[in-house]
């Protein structure tokens, strides 16, 4: 196909964050040469792999013009269920994984269904969902982690596939390519973006709003489940606290990657480099022994900065057309 298809595939949102992460890598490796050591790359890529699924989980909800506060607690619930299935019911890892993904999708569909049917703002429903799923998590684990994670799962979470590339990168690639395909090639992805872009136009064009919103939340649940189980593998423990700190980074990466919060425009590539930037900054702060909580300040500032830029871009487009 001609050039147009190419430019459309690589929308220009990812170029900015890509450059920033490149510069960051170069600068840091100058001050700290061990930044590029194989072991460090392994650790960095593992963090990026997990956070990419978390960011994609929020991205698919931002695309439909909503927000998902329950992302973390769905991830946590799936994490402990995954570990429990392996420890208590002695299920083989693959079967437990399918069980985990099913739980994630079910939880996502439940909140999607309530949001779609009642028309109540996604914020409040997913806030209630956050508490309910976290409550179920605590009810099952009574705040005690599950230790019975089989060695095969532990290896998947920590060993390298080739050189410094960890196995965890596999699910990231599958999820990244999968979501890119959904957003750019599958009908459900275009319908999700259509609702986010112009809800009324979508409705008039025969897009079934309710089912599409439920689909979006199901995908979000699936991705949260994936991230939760990847963390169980990496931490080698089914810990009830998994997912508690996902909220901020799940918004920061997509927004840095050029996603429009009112919905309708997302960039999987941009989100990936958003995740890379956050991972680099988090690690840099540890390397330079800066207070770890500075990350929170930086993330908050980056959200405001990215939102501000998107807002300016919208105003410029609006003014150009008026």
């Amino acid at each position, binding site marked *: 196909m001609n050039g147009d298809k190419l430019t459309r595939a690589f929308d220009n949102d990812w170029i900015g964050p890509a450059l920033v992460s490149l510069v960051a890598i170069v600068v840091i490796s100058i001050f700290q040469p061990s930044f590029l050591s194989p072991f460090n790359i392994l650790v960095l890529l593992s963090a990026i792999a997990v956070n990419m699924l978390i960011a994609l989980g929020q991205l698919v909800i931002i695309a439909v013009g909503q927000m998902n506060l329950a992302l973390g607690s769905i991830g946590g619930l799936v994490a402990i269920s995954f570990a429990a299935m392996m420890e208590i019911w002695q299920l083989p890892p693959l079967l437990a994984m399918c069980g985990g993904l099913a739980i994630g999708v079910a939880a996502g569909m439940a909140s999607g269904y309530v949001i779609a049917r009642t028309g109540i703002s996604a914020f409040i429903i997913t806030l209630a969902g956050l508490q309910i799923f976290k409550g179920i998590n605590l009810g099952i684990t009574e705040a005690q982690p599950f230790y019975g994670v089989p060695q095969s799962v532990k290896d998947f979470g920590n060993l390298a596939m080739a050189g410094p590339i960890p196995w965890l990168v596999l699910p990231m690639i599958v999820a990244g390519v999968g979501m890119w395909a959904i957003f750019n090639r599958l009908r459900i992805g275009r319908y999700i*973006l259509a609702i986010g872009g112009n809800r009324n136009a979508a409705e*008039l064009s025969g897009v079934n709003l309710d089912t599409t919103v439920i689909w979006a939340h199901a995908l979000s649940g699936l991705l949260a489940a994936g991230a939760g189980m990847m963390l169980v593998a990496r931490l080698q423990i089914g810990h009830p606290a998994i997912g508690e700190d996902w909220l901020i980074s799940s918004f920061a990466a997509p927004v840095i990657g050029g996603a429009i919060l009112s919905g309708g425009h997302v960039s999987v590539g941009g989100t990936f480099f958003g995740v890379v930037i956050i991972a680099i900054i988090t690690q840099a702060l540890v390397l330079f022994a800066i207070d770890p909580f500075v990350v929170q300040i930086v993330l908050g500032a980056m959200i405001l900065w990215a939102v501000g830029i998107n807002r300016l871009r919208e105003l410029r487009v609006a003014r150009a057309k008026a």
Partner: protein
Amino acid sequence: MSAALEVSHASKSFPGVKALDDVSLTLMPGSIHALLGENGAGKSTLIKIITGLHRPDQGEVTLNGQPVRFANPRQAVSAGIGAVHQERNLVSRFSIGENIMLERLGAHALSVIDYGKLHEEAAKWLRLLDLYIDPRRPVSSLSVAQMQLVEIGKALALQTRVLLLDEPTASLTPNETQVLFGILRRLRDDGVAIVFVSHKLEEVFGLCDTVTVLRDGRNACAAMPLKELARTDVVKMMIGREERIAKRAPRPRATTAPYLQLKNVGTAAGHRDISLSIRPGEIIGLYGLVGAGRSELAKAILGQVRRTAGEMLVNGKPVAIASPADALHRHGIGYVSEDRKQEGLILLHTVLGNAGITVWRSLANALGFLRDRSVIDRTAPVLQQLEVKTPSVYQTIGNLSGGNQQKVSVAKWIAAGVKLLIIDEPTVGIDIKTKAYLHDLIHELAERGTAILLITSDMPEMVDVADHILVMSGFTIKGEVENDRNYERVSQAIMSFIHSSAAA
């Protein structure tokens, strides 16, 4: 052959107002049918019925002879009734082709989209509309005219046989309008039935075959061929002749110093060289059709629209009003909004809460405390004088009739003792009795020395109430008419100003 679309004896009423009363419209295939009518004539309600947003209380809608009942707009679209509204119904970040083919992206949720075939198919429709643009381009990069054509293309792709265009030429350049008309004529020849809704009479006469005019929710005429009508006949039908000729004597032009003066004012909304002055006790009328820029001018006076040129004087002193709060508390200027539900009132709150909103600040004691008692003392006399019928001042205002609501939205400014009151379309959707009552009230206010700027497109109301009339069109003042209450003369003078400007 049977009518493509027929609305027969439709009636529709909302709480407090009867929007449509026994209205009919027949639309023959292969014809362009104009739908005309002033604000509040029920035009928008009829459009909503045709496009399936509302259902008529009585009467029925038939499509190609069969009666239909649309639960939602989607059903109307799939039944072949396409519509191009003012607000764009396109997904701006999608490509042109994808917008056109949004209906048929794929059989089921997970089907892969073949963009090659999709854009080829879309290009076919674009060529039909002489729009030679790459269908891959995102809609956000198009001009308004091009977007409109894409929407028409989208309707055609859905095998639309009935196409409704609502004010399509509002933001088009003259030659873009001609391009659009050429396409509409070609569609008409292909047998598509088109409903053309516009305020520009010269466009209607240039393009349409038949016309339906609505006034006060009823048919002024139904599907009359335009060939048999002159422009003035249509205008007469639109603005109607009020039997009750004004009984008020014309009032001599007051000679006191003007309270508000605008000197060749220009605004960001597009006003150019606006000059007017309003004296205390005087009622200045601002007549114009929808889109003439009258409400925007009012907003400019209140500081909600940025003033880019000229000067504004209050009591002879130049002022810069930053916000409605500034206008009210510093200069005593009030504004009765045309959009009662959104901008006029707070439906959730009580009558007292709405009537007193403008006086809270002045009634509060040093500490900012304020008891209902002092608010009631200030507002009850005004509510009583306006005969507002409400079970109590604590009644939620949303439960009151349209007429009573409008009385309260005027009462709050009277209670505030404003020196200049701008009233925008005061009697839209109001019953006849209350309408007459409001006219008397406006006169009474003027008698008591309040300067009034009356914005309306209801000709009889203008002639009955205003002392001096400014005619506005296309964001500029076209001319002034002294009001000697002679309906015939004054309405002709106004009409000539409006049409002269349009033709120029």
